[in-house]
């Protein structure tokens, strides 16, 4: 596994106006919100606590960034900053292949953001790509094997070892039952028609390679994928 240290972060700050504005705010010494009732400097600080004042005098006239930051939002830390590491990845939805940065803390994905280094996506993600943290951590995610026996009306559970053993037996059985040595004219067929497969387009090239290799070796030709659909 290759990881990138979190310390290198200037680039992703540049992507998001909010992040950039927030960063500027944190460093330029201007005081954000907070009422301090001290004469002189205190009054000025107090006035600067007003978003409208900051809008009129600062570089955020539309009030879409630093000017509107509250005391509470200033106290928040982005999950991207506290992550232990970042993995460089690629969005799994459409075929544009936007660069993703996957932030990990305590061995759990805490945030997924666009990668500003990507030459063709330039840090952007669409609603699906932006939601992909939920694809990884969502409540609906399966973590155990579900098994439906013939004629059963409910799921039951299987452990991984048992499931693999049962599937291996069924594949070998279906392979043999559907085997064809030759056609009527004696042309070699060397194949089984007992097994079919349909794969999605979120499989890796390496996975597709092994799938095709194994199916070809076992004589199963009916391997298909989403590209046909």
């Amino acid at each position, binding site marked *: 596994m290759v990881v990138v240290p979190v310390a290198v972060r200037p680039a992703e700050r540049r992507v998001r106006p909010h992040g950039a504005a927030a960063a500027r705010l944190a460093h330029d010494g201007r005081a954000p919100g907070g009422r301090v009732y001290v004469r002189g400097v205190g009054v000025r600080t107090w006035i600067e606590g007003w978003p409208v004042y900051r809008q009129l005098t600062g570089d955020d006239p539309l009030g879409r960034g630093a000017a509107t930051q509250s005391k509470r939002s200033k106290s928040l830390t982005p999950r991207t900053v506290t992550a232990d590491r970042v993995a460089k990845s690629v969005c799994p939805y459409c075929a544009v292949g936007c660069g993703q940065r996957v932030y990990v803390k305590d061995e759990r994905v805490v945030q997924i953001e666009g990668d500003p280094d990507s030459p*063709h996506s330039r840090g952007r993600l669409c609603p699906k790509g932006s939601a992909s943290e939920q694809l990884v951590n969502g409540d609906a995610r399966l973590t155990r094997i579900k098994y439906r026996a013939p*004629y059963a009306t409910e799921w039951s559970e299987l452990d991984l070892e048992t499931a693999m053993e049962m599937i291996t037996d069924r594949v070998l059985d279906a392979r043999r039952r559907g085997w064809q040595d030759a056609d009527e*004219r004696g042309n070699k067929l060397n194949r089984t028609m007992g097994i*079919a497969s349909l794969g999605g387009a979120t499989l890796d090239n390496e996975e597709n390679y092994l799938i095709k290799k194994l199916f070809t070796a076992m004589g199963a030709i009916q391997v298909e994928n989403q590209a046909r659909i």
Partner: protein
Amino acid sequence: MPGLGASFGRGGATGDLQDLSNADVIVIEGSNMAECHPVGFQWVMEAKARGAKVIHVDPRFTRTSALADTYVPIRSGTDIVFLGAIVNRVLTQERDFREYVLAYTNASWIVSEDFQDTEDLDGLFSGFDAEKRSYDTSSWQYEGSEHHGDDEEDTARAQESESGHQLGAGGAAVEHRDIRRDPTLQHPRTVWQILKRHFSRYTPEMVAEVCGVPTDVFDEVAEAWISNSNRERTTALVYSVGWTQRGTGVQYIRTGAILQLLLGNMGRPGGGIMALRGHASIQGSTDIPTLYNLLPGYLPMPHAEKHADLATYVDQIRGQGQKGFWGNAESYVVSLLKAYFGDRATAENDYMFDALPRIDGDHGTYGQVMDMLEGGKIFGYFLLGQNPAVGSANGRAQRLGMANLDWVVVRDLVEIESATFWKDAPEVETGEIVPEECRTEVFLMPAASHVEKEGTFTQTQRMLQWREKAVNPPGDATSELWFFYHLGRRMREKLAGSTDPRDRPLLDVAWDYPVHGEEQEPSSEDVLKEINGYDLTTGELLPGYTAMRPDGTTSGGCWIYSGVYADGVNQAARRKPGREQSLHAHEWGWAWPMNRRMLYNRASADPDGKPWSERKALVWWDEAAGRWTGDDVPDFEVTKPPSYRPPEGATGVEAIAGDDPFIMQSDGKGWLYAPKGVVDGPLPAHYEPAESPFRNTVYTQQQNPAREIYTNHLNEVHPSPPERGSEVFPYVWTTSRMTEHHTAGGMSRFLPYLAELQPALFMEVSPELAAERGLTHMGWAHVVTARAVVEARVMVTDRLAPLRVQDRVVHQIWLPYHWGQGGLTTGDVVNDLVHLTLDPNVHIQEFKAGTCDVRPGRRPRGRAVLELIDEYRVRGGVTMSTGTVAVTAEFLDPDGRSRAEQADDGAVAAGEGHDDEDLDKVVSVEHDIRSRPGQPQQHGAALRVLEESPRSGPRDGRDRHDEGRQG
């Protein structure tokens, strides 16, 4: 992608997304890029900001239209007429890029005098065999090479085994040495003159009548496209699944390719054809295919009759006397067999070529479903991140097919509909699937997500990008790499010691992948290295496919990907920031072939090797240095000068002249006319979609005569004119996707954010249609076809403008197809409406146009759904033979063969037989798929003829069915 493959030599997008910013005009047709490829669309906006004109042609006004300069509403299924009329204008006004056309295309080549065009045969090309529904292509060949054509048997075979798909990495084989040319283009049988005659009836008036596009709007698009295609300017064409998911999709793409060649836009900055793929690694899954008809690198799967041994197989791929890099096919094949079988593959045993299984017909996913329905052929089914219960055409056939299997293994992130069909499919509600009687055993296995495994995706511009692993998969979730490695290991262990020759390939396959960690995960990097290939004499990784050898001294799992691990470096994992590189960013990821980002870029220079213009320079010949240079890796032999002419008798790479930019084509040229490689015609012709409310007014021939039809009672096709009954289904439906959901919904309907953003299935209708059918905004309505009834909320919007076609108004209904019964937002399965009529080249279904009726209110429930469908069948006279006519002229001729004869002859997959006399009545079938313990279900009860009220039918049927069950 034979549309691109047959035209240019490779079936992939020709440039990269960034290059769209170099365009002067961008035409987006058959794609809603702003919503379906939103982040890629930034490059269109970049071009617009630099002054480019953006044109969007689509049935529905979308966010792409909103951002375009010109939006053209078009009737779904008529793009060939629209584009054909632009081709016609280019040819008749001689506004082509003549120097480019003469040097880089087959315009001046002379075609056999036996060739007859659709102009001569009223919508058919010469060589059509109505009984086989396929063409004998001998007459399509160039003069002097007629014997290189395929007879109709060959074409039928090519069609079944989808040889067109093999054009992913190379054009079709033709003998080029004897071809006669006429550089003046005056000979009546030059490709140029044939094209001119062929497209002559595609006029602006025809566009208005067929597409519903007014003449002035057409003029604006044609003028923008043509006047922005020359030495100084280029136009880019963008299409997506709006073109590919058609019964004639390959020919749509061919029309775009012809236009881009005539206008000299191929291989040049801001030109080309951007084929936007729909999913993360669709390009990858055809490059390294999980497809029945291909081996990696677009090598064909061996065919039982055609490929008796390795030598025959290799000869067929490289052709005779053919130009180009397919001349080295033997090296690619032998290297693959070495990767598959390692030391077991030797010269003495033909590198174990004999061990490979053979195909001999259509074994595609829809043919498989027909076999599942029939029963007794397919026993087990793997679904790997795929949800056909929702995502495939005719969902009812998909689910009923799965309910007729012994076992299904579903590997996915969530509990998708394809895993739960036995308990909550719509067919459970109608009583067609009874859980207690459904024998299918289901293993639902949790899969690893994209951040829980490492590996490469190949995105839309042929670029491989490596993903690092962020965390381990949760619980028992595993990657496909893990699953298939261990499945193979277990099978081999169980078969160890077997003496059965059938088990030899499985025992001999090279399967010794080292595993790592507690999870025993194989390494994706090891597999990627195997794909790249090794020099077996030194153990070093190959620098690229040109280093592959035919003598067994090299290995390589996918020749077009060779070079991805050049210098021992994972090139796909390179991530030099884009802002530190040129536009094409050669140090980000790796693109096949050989990291070339812009295919055919030799054509960006003139025949002498000089850029056509300073403004559009990309790759050029540097005389002093003696090499090609520029802003991209040359898609050409880097030291072959423009003046090079091959010696007499040269073949393969040596035969590519210095001005042959299409190096994977068997003649080095871009194909305006395709004598081979496309099974339904050397030129595109407009046919109406398989279901249409309109008569074809371009030719007598109504539908694509070579379309592929599955005859099955679950898949009946509506009548189209001139058959009677089409008025029962007066509207056109079209489907597509949304920004916030993804395909069959498994990756979106289960996510709270996305479910909230698009919380319900809906249909878009025009205010006029709403008034005509009494539909109310936000109310319910249901769409009816002979396959299914689907309900959805109604959105009344002028995004779907009614069009005036053939002097009457046609209404179109649009639905997104992402819904099913699972997830946080649920809805009916829109793909249930769709019939299976397939493009004969690629076996892709027609998702984008069909006919239907729409009614206000919610749909009926339970068995009443089937009764409603039957009612429509009765009214429309829908049978298994409607819509199956091959040759319309014969159907119209009272002395010709009957519809039944044609249907019987043409049925690709045999369904229930039917008698002549039944055809004037209406045939209905009890949908009985219930399995009984211990007995594989044979699908379908006997045919019943409904003569009286349709309502009495199903009730009778149910009674009989109940008796049958008790018996």
